């Protein structure tokens, strides 16, 4: 674990020293939260909208912003920089397990994910959102958002390792946007049109979003929480296995 942790610390230093890459991951999700709530809050008044469980529409939208914040994947662009600049070869010339090179950045992503999710949820609390599942729910909320950050970063690293191109990696990141909108983003799944409901059911992001939402709006609903963590964990393992395979055969 030591080489992965050492590389993780390096990736965190890198993020800290590049605030221009870090700050948009906080402000853009906040921007979408404000805009979405501004556009739809009057359609869904908290008193008469059952799926809000007595909270404002901001509480319903917060999971989308958490997922968006966790899906920037800037770590993969730093990886492409390493590849293009030759530092990646420098790392490959050291006697560390190839997995450590992949895991290092993912460890850093998880730390960044925890900090970003905490900041977003705390901002939400300031504006009247409550986490209905309590302190444990808050911890689970932050952990699931951070786990998703790791999954998405793993996907982006995979693209970076395969293409070795910043442009291709950037474009691949845009895949998330259709996935984010093919979810019960504005209303619960049972209120979607049939085709959208089918699409959302097949979209893994839906289950992560529903788990996050349940933690904010309801008490600890373990069936939804475990589904969310399960989907993220399976995707995380798949990304990790593929990345490690790719880096082991990297020429």
């Amino acid at each position, binding site marked *: 674990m*030591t*080489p992965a942790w*050492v*590389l993780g610390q*390096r990736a965190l*230093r*890198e993020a800290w*020293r*590049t605030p221009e890459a870090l700050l948009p991951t906080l402000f853009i999700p906040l921007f979408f939260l404000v805009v979405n709530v501004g556009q739809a809050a009057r359609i869904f008044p908290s008193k008469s909208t059952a799926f809000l469980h007595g909270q404002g529409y901001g509480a319903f939208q917060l999971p989308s912003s958490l997922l968006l914040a966790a899906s920037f994947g800037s770590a993969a662009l730093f990886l492409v920089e*390493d590849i293009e*600049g*030759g*530092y*990646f*070869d*420098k*790392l*490959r*010339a*050291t*006697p*560390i397990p190839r997995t450590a090179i992949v895991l290092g950045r993912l460890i850093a992503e998880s730390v960044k994910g925890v900090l970003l999710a905490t900041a977003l949820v705390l901002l939400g609390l300031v504006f009247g959102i409550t986490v209905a599942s309590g302190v444990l729910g808050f911890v689970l909320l932050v952990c699931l958002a951070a786990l998703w950050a790791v999954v998405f970063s793993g996907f982006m690293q995979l693209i970076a390792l395969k293409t070795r191109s910043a442009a291709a990696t950037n474009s691949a990141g845009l895949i998330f946007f259709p996935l984010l909108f093919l979810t019960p983003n504005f209303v619960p799944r049972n209120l979607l049109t049939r085709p959208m409901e089918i699409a959302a059911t097949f979209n893994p992001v839906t289950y992560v979003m529903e788990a996050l939402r349940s933690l904010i709006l309801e008490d600890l609903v373990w069936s939804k929480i475990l589904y969310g963590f399960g989907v993220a964990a399976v995707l995380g393992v798949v990304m990790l296995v593929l990345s490690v395979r790719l880096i082991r*055969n990297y*020429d």
Partner: protein
Amino acid sequence: MSDATHNGAAVQADGLVKHYAGKDVIEAVRGVDLRVEGGEVFGFLGPNGAGKSTTVKMLTTLLSITSGTAFVAGVDVARDPDEARRRMGVALQEAGLDPRQTGRELLVLQGRLFGMSPSEALTRAGELLALVELEDSADRRIKGYSGGMKRRLDLASALVHEPEVLFLDEPTTGLDPASRLTVWDELRRINNRGTTIFLTTQYLEEADQLCDRIAIIDGGLIVREGTPARLKAELRERRGLASDPTLDDVFLDATGRTRVAGDVQEVSA
């Protein structure tokens, strides 16, 4: 996994081949045999695209080997790459450095990746910064370093774990003459401490100044090998020249190119 059959050789390659699969198979290296003795400075020369960097990348475990074998410090690089990595230092073309770290942080990180404790890595980083005369800039971010400083830091990072063999791919390309001389001095100092140096270069004067022996690769095959003096003498004798040719002449002769009115042109056989 040390191999006693490579007794004394710091680097030994036999029938080294690299093919790149694709629409058409590209034969980048077509059967390279090399032997570099411990303590030597060995120069590996060749025109662009001749297979120099590909050979170095295979020897340094960064590229898979299509066929043939390669041993560095007695270790089979294909069968035991991690052990080979512990015994070699690598500084490739375009100093591979992380611009967002400071020089000291980069060296400490490198030490940690080679298994040192934080305090050992910090001490070693200090020693190396002194060796390459970068103590004053050690805590500045690398993105502010000059090309020469980056090269020297890259050299230092390749030496963190005191390797037996140091591979340098065009260590002075792009440097001004003063920086080049500084790097040469560093290399001599490193070699005097017993480290074998395997370097590629496009500067024949550099090879002449630094190398005990050289090999010239062209079209993926070694076309000349020996000491600079012996190669010059051989050409002088073969061509019946009145005076010793330069290493440039040896290179042009070996690679089938000729000098015409200041230009280098290929000779069609």
